């Protein structure tokens, strides 16, 4: 004698058992890492985690879970119109959930709260801003000369880029030469008499910005500038209408202790959860495209995807307090 449940349901429960271990490995790792990292970022002003967004998403998932239960009730009493209606609403709520999630992700990208992008000390923050500013200046040279360049290699580590100002290092010299050549061409163009005035103005702006970068970079290398001073200097440049559009990619300096670990964990946990939401949506769509053909034989299927969806809700129930509140 087997178990008194359909095979598919047993399969779903076994799958959910593996899912429990999958998520608890990540959640457990997060709890332990956090306990072992003094000064973990928990200020919403720094992490840009919005409790209202997380809370709203919790509500959305709970409501969708409730609708799934009602859909299953509809299937049981063979009221297929009701089942379809509630499954539709669930699908809609899943879209709302992903919408709020992508709004939050967009905020993370805007403030560059991404794994491997976050400076954790003031020194690292200054290095990062100089790297960003160098990219702005180089990019401007490329745009101005509208010339194709060989693929730029990523700087191996922040120190390399800060040292570029001196251009004595063999490794960096090799990479930087093309931009340097462009710079000389642009210099020649600026000096030439037949260059139009508008073009000259553009070129002058580029060279002024380049000079400002080099001055700031020298001070950064001498370590004679503090993070607050650097922020003030960059802010002045951003306020200047000449440079405002160019300086947009340079971020405000904001060291976050353990920020990279935080960002990795945040994107790993919420990313895997969002992936589960997307898969759940596909499962709902499979029922909904049946339209009027929806019949009694789909009852087990709806029950199983319902179990899956409740599990997705369950994971979020734990992620919300762990990530947003504590």
């Amino acid at each position, binding site marked *: 004698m087997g178990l008194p449940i359909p095979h598919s349901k047993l399969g779903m429960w*076994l799958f959910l058992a593996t899912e429990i271990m999958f998520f608890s490995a990540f959640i457990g790792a997060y709890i332990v890492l956090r306990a072992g990292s*003094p000064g973990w970022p928990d200020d919403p002003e720094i992490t840009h985690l919005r409790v209202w967004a997380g809370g709203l998403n919790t509500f959305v998932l709970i409501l969708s879970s409730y609708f799934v239960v009602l859909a299953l009730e509809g299937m049981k009493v063979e009221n297929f119109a009701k089942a379809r209606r509630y499954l539709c609403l669930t699908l809609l709520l899943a879209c709302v959930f992903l919408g709020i999630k992508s709004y939050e992700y967009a905020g993370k990208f805007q403030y560059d709260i991404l794994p491997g992008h976050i400076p954790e000390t003031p020194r690292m923050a200054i290095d990062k801003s100089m790297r960003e500013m160098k990219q702005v200046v180089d990019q401007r040279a490329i745009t101005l000369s509208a010339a194709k360049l060989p693929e730029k290699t990523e700087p191996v580590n922040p120190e390399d880029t800060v040292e570029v100002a001196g251009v004595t290092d063999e490794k960096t010299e090799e990479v930087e030469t093309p931009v340097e050549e462009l710079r000389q061409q642009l210099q020649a163009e600026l000096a030439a008499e037949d260059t139009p005035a508008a073009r000259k103005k553009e070129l002058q702006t580029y060279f002024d910005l380049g000079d400002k970068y080099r001055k700031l970079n020298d001070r950064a290398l001498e370590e004679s500038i503090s993070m607050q001073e650097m922020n003030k200097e960059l802010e002045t440049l951003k306020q200047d209408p000449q440079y405002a559009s160019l300086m947009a990619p340079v971020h405000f300096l904001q060291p976050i202790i353990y920020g990279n670990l935080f960002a990795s964990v945040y994107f790993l946990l919420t990313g895997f959860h969002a992936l589960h939401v997307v898969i759940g949506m596909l499962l709902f769509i499979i029922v909904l495209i049946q339209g009027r053909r929806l019949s009694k034989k789909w009852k087990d299927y709806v029950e199983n995807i319902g179990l899956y969806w409740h599990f997705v809700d369950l994971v979020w129930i*734990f992620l919300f307090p762990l990530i947003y509140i504590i």
Partner: protein
Amino acid sequence: MSDQHDHAYVKYSSIFYALCICTGLSIVFDVIDLKKQNIIGMNGVVLLAVLVLAVACAKALFVLIYFMHLKFEGRWKYVLLSPTIVLAMGLTIAITPDIGIHYYTNEAPQIDYLEQARETAAKTDALNPEKSHVE
């Protein structure tokens, strides 16, 4: 079975309301900002963690028992779920002593900066580098 459906319908909605109230409760715990306070001699963060995780567990149980119908299932549910739950908790407990609790002091630039920041914050309340960010 079918005569129970109307009854079940009412029950599901009350579970839904209970879940909403629990979510509201978590947000209230966040809003009253227990972290900075020191109630009944307990570290605020620990107290907050205990409270919100207790609420989360209550919510999880509501979902498991009623929405996922575990209340109405046979004993197979214990056989199937207890090993995974033991393993899941076991993993966390196993990695805690090494990563979560150090007997040694971590050597990392972040830690040095944290100590510097705490010292400056202790000396002058003004201009804590972490709080200087304006949106």
